[in-house]
């Protein structure tokens, strides 16, 4: 059931990116979609009563770094967290690029409306 709410968030972002006419609203819709996807990936790796994947001193049994069975049995999945970490920083870079395109277009045409940009000629 939390998956359904996450999918609802994605559909709200998709609706905003497809239907709206203001360029900044389209950018906001893309950002909401990215938030929804990151949230969904982390929710896939969650385990009830789990622990964060950080090892502390009492989890190490044995020489050479053997981990205790309690830690391995309760740890949440570290792989989706690694993927989402890079995805969050990439979304910031693409936001900067999209906003710079919006600012340039406003400079040239005087409006943020995409239907008017289609009809003006230079």
């Amino acid at each position, binding site marked *: 059931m939390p998956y359904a709410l996450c999918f609802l968030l994605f559909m709200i972002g998709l609706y905003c990116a497809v239907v709206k006419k203001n360029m900044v609203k389209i950018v*906001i819709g893309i950002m909401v979609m990215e938030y929804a996807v990151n949230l969904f990936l982390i929710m896939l790796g969650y385990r009830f009563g789990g622990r964060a994947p950080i090892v502390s001193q009492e989890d190490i049994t044995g020489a050479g770094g053997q981990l205790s069975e309690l830690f391995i049995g309760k740890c949440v999945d570290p792989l989706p967290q690694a993927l989402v970490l890079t995805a969050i920083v990439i979304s910031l870079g693409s936001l900067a690029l999209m906003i710079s395109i919006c600012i340039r277009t406003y400079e040239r045409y005087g409006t943020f409306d995409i239907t008017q940009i289609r009809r003006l000629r230079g």
Partner: protein
Amino acid sequence: MAVFYILLLFIVIAAIIAVETQDLLSSVICVGAIGFGGSLMFLFLRAPDIAITQIVVEVLGLIILIRATIARDFTFITGDREFFGMVVSIVIIFAVGLAGMKVFETLPDFGTPIFTQVPEAASQTYTAEGLQKTGAANLVASVILDFRAYDTLGEATVLFTSIIGATVILRKKAKKLLEDLDE
């Protein structure tokens, strides 16, 4: 479990407000609220790395978004869309919605991740042997910088390229060159 539902409801309400309001400054503030709620969700889902990264990235993203929306005079955008565009949009949204519903049947239940049911998954190796093979106590850092370092190299390249693209688009000399060429 109840705290997940409360936070998700907060995020969905903030998203609806961000999409529907006419004032651009209000929708930027609601995007900030979505990011903040998302960071709290990550903290409760036992991912502290991601929570730190999300909150600081969201603060810088808000500064970039406000730069585009402040001090610009808008006319409120009215007028109806053409009919064909509206039909195509509705078809796209329906298609994605139906495809998403089909995926729900294949997902495992919330709280039992996939790697507990598949004994040869990659995450079993990452949690069991991460400290031995790399010596890092933070298992996520050992995954992104040792086991999967190629992905980090690709991410650094993408960030580099997008920042160069933004710098090139916003250059002032190009504008002057374009005006000289137009004559």
